[in-house]
């Protein structure tokens, strides 16, 4: 689908609030919790009068794209410092699927099938550590302090969002509207004046169809941008305002995960946290958190610096689950939820302009994730709290939400906080990965142990410039002519190229069992429960379809978490099926071609969209 259709200027409905927040995740949760607690004086009068509705308290609106405030997010392990600060009496038993961390391990996984591409050092490690391995896994004798999450907690962000959102709504001081995709900010020069909702009643290409309802303009004195790393408002601001000098958003990962009912007799106790390295490929990390009730959240992270043009997270996750150490405890389990999400892995380097006249950015999309400690939720919540406190300060003083005032309050608080201090330590921690997996691990260790004084050098490269051709990637494994035969055969059958190539280089076929090892399509239906509301346009578009037509890597197809992007049998740009999209945003960076109008971006545009996962447990 081309991105060249222009919607004519049409009259749009307009409304006004005082504060409009885009996206409801941990950052917005922290913001709204802090804000609503301070909006009323003890005598029941508001701390400031609404300008949009005089005589009322400030009108606070939050728009969430997904169909429910708990849909489409992820399981997490976190120290939870800022969350605990907001809820000092937090009782985790009140939040389903939450538990304190009781047991944390880092495991090095040996390749049990012989198909993994292991550098010499990994092969050596497989041999040397073999004698101390249990089920082909070696438990690291200690966890570096910078990676440790104990004492901390594990929970499903979906369940946390439900709990936080329900508490917020009960205050009557903030409205959280699900099923409400925001298309873009309303900009006036460099200032933001509110947001525009996505158009409805449109064709696939976004052009007006029957029942066309132009998206409403919601004007507000302050727009809080909390729509995550692939959110359309944040992306729009980055395009219009640019990033601060020296910053970039070139490093990403997709986290694919599922929630599993563990089999009876599984010896993992609630609160167990496993981090794995080494398998299915050295570049792919695994995680597993055990919730109360014999349930686990588990999955893998596939980073943008895994230089494979066929980096399919789903199949790699299935191989990872079958690793002997894990499979011994997972076999007989049942998948009850499944999903995926893109993670912005640049951390502080990816920080955008944090505020301007009429807007402020919080959470993952504001570069708050700590890429050394692998922690994002706690930091996102903290930035929300910082903005909440700042907004209350400005409201009480009767000050405007100008760049100057937001800099002096929100940005100043953030710079003085532990989030910033730790982000600075982490800033260069992953540079080594740009030059290889071993350098990456050594670099993280150096940064972590020296608190950022010594770092492994490396220059981050745009994802589209890293991806080799399929022929190059497999040059020592499959002859070019055979690759062409496999391509032709897959095109004829309409089957996936990555499966055929992985089969060919020795990855065993997945023994589907219909309960835990299920086909990708079954995972969409029984795990992700993916839905798409009618009347919206395609949110995945190709900037220049001609470039796609000649693309041979087609990483967007191979890496699509929901198999929503697929080959057009008639040639040309790939096709997109909105009803399968889980809105993970991986297509945004899983593309081997640059956008002809902006070489920093890829040829895939990820816009505002409706629907997606209906799973609330991930």
């Amino acid at each position: 689908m081309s991105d060249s259709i222009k919607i004519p200027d049409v009259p749009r409905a307009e409304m006004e609030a005082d504060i409009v927040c885009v996206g409801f995740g941990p950052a917005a949760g922290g913001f709204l919790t802090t804000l609503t607690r301070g909006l009323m004086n003890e005598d029941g009068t508001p701390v400031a009068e609404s300008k949009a509705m005089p005589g009322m308290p400030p009108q606070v609106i939050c728009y969430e794209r997904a169909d429910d405030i708990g849909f489409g997010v992820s399981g997490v392990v976190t120290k939870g410092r800022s969350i605990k600060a907001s809820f000092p009496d937090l009782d985790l038993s009140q939040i389903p699927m939450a538990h304190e961390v009781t047991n944390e391990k880092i495991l090095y996984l040996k390749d049990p099938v012989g198909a993994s591409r292991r550098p010499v050092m990994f092969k050596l490690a497989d041999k040397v550590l073999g004698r101390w391995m249990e089920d082909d896994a070696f438990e690291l004798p200690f966890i570096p302090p910078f990676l440790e999450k104990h004492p901390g907690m594990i929970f499903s962000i979906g369940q946390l969002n439900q709990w936080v959102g329900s508490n917020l709504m009960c205050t009557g001081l903030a409205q959280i509207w699900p099923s409400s995709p925001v298309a873009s900010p309303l900009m006036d020069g460099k200032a933001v004046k509110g947001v525009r909702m996505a158009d409805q009643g449109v064709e696939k290409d976004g052009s007006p169809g029957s029942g066309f309802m132009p998206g409403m303009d919601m004007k507000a004195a302050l727009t809080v941008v909390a729509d995550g790393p692939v959110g359309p408002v944040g992306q729009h601001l980055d395009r219009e305002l640019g990033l601060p000098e020296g910053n970039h958003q070139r490093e990403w990962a997709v986290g694919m995960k599922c929630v599993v009912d563990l089999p009876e007799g599984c010896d993992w106790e609630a609160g167990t946290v496993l981090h794995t390295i080494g398998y299915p490929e050295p570049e792919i990390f695994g995680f597993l958190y055990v919730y109360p009730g014999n349930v686990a959240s588990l999955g893998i992270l596939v980073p943008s610096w895994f230089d494979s043009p066929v980096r399919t997270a789903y199949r790699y996750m299935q191989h990872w689950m079958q690793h002997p150490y894990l499979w011994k405890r997972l076999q007989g389990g049942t998948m009850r939820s499944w999903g995926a999400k893109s993670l912005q892995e640049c951390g502080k380097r990816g920080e955008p302009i944090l505020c301007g006249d009429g807007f402020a950015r919080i959470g993952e999309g504001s570069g708050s994730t700590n890429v050394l400690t692998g922690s994002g939720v706690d930091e996102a919540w903290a930035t929300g709290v910082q903005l909440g406190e700042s907004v209350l300060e400005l409201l009480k003083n009767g000050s405007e939400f100008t760049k100057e005032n937001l800099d002096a309050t929100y940005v100043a608080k953030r710079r003085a906080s532990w989030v910033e201090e730790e982000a600075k330590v982490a800033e260069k921690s992953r540079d080594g990965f740009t030059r290889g997996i071993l350098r990456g691990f050594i670099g993280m260790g150096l940064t972590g142990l020296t608190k950022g004084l010594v770092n492994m050098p490396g220059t981050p490269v745009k994802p589209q410039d890293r991806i080799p051709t399929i022929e190059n990637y497999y040059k020592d494994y499959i002859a070019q002519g055979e690759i062409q035969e496999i391509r032709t055969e897959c095109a004829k059958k309409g089957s996936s190229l990555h499966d055929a190539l992985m089969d060919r280089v020795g990855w065993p076929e997945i023994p589907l069992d219909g309960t835990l090892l299920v086909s990708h399509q079954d995972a969409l239906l029984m795990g992700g429960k993916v839905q798409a509301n009618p009347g919206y346009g395609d949110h995945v578009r190709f900037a220049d379809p001609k470039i796609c037509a000649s693309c041979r890597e087609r990483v967007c197809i191979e890496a699509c978490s929901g198999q929503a992007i697929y080959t057009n049998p008639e040639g040309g740009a790939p096709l997109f099926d909105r009803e399968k999209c889980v809105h993970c945003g991986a297509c945004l960076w899983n593309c081997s071609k640059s956008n002809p109008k902006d070489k920093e971006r890829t040829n895939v545009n990820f816009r505002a969209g409706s629907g997606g996962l209906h799973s609330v447990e991930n």
Partner: protein
Amino acid sequence: MSTDFHIVVCGSIVPDPLQTLKPVDGPAGPALQNEMMLPAVLDPWAGHALYEAANLAKNYPGSRVWLVSLGPKAKLQQVMMSVSQKAPFELVVADGSASGFTDSFETAKILADTIDGIADLDKSKLLLFGGWQSASRGSGAVMQMVGEMLGVTEQFQGVDRITIGSDGSIEVMERIEGGSYQKSIVDAAPAVLGWATGELPEPPNNPQIGMQNMQKNMPALQRAQPADLSGSSLSFESVEVPQQRRETRVVKDVPVEEMAKEIVEWLKA
């Protein structure tokens, strides 16, 4: 005869149909595990009734629409943030269980009492709408009982269309056995109409309508009175979700006819 109707839609929440439901024994009888944390939606049957009501009210000026819901108000509030974007209505809440493990008679009694308490309601103009059954553990009998309790004897179930005549009469097209329709004409309101799917598509989300609705409806939620459902003598021997069987098998080079035959055999088994 007047054509400005007072339309009362009875409808509450059910768990999002895509979620995994697990019955558990609670202190007050059966319940669903983590029910308050399960994402919920407006019962789809009641949703059809609401959209039909809004459309009718739009076409007949002077009409009003109330949505009367028996459900836990915290959860209702969350669901209303989606529902209220679809159509204008005034919300009236009875704060109680929507678990479906409640006695239909008690549920009907609460709804009837709540409707009786609507200050501006003119029962001579009353069209009592609802789903003809609930998508979640409903008995399919509540609407009839609410109608009886309110003294409304003209009742229709499985309604897909109504047409208002110039004299205020209402032609009702309701589903009957064998995939056929029956047309009836009722002279005027009041009447009970238990809707099937109706004929209207789900309206788009209109944030403006949502904001207008919630300005009225948030106070209604806060005013909601606890609903007393304790009068029931109903008890449950056991509860369970319907069994599902799922088998996935990869087959290659099998003709479509063979696959169809195998699926039929599987279904028969």
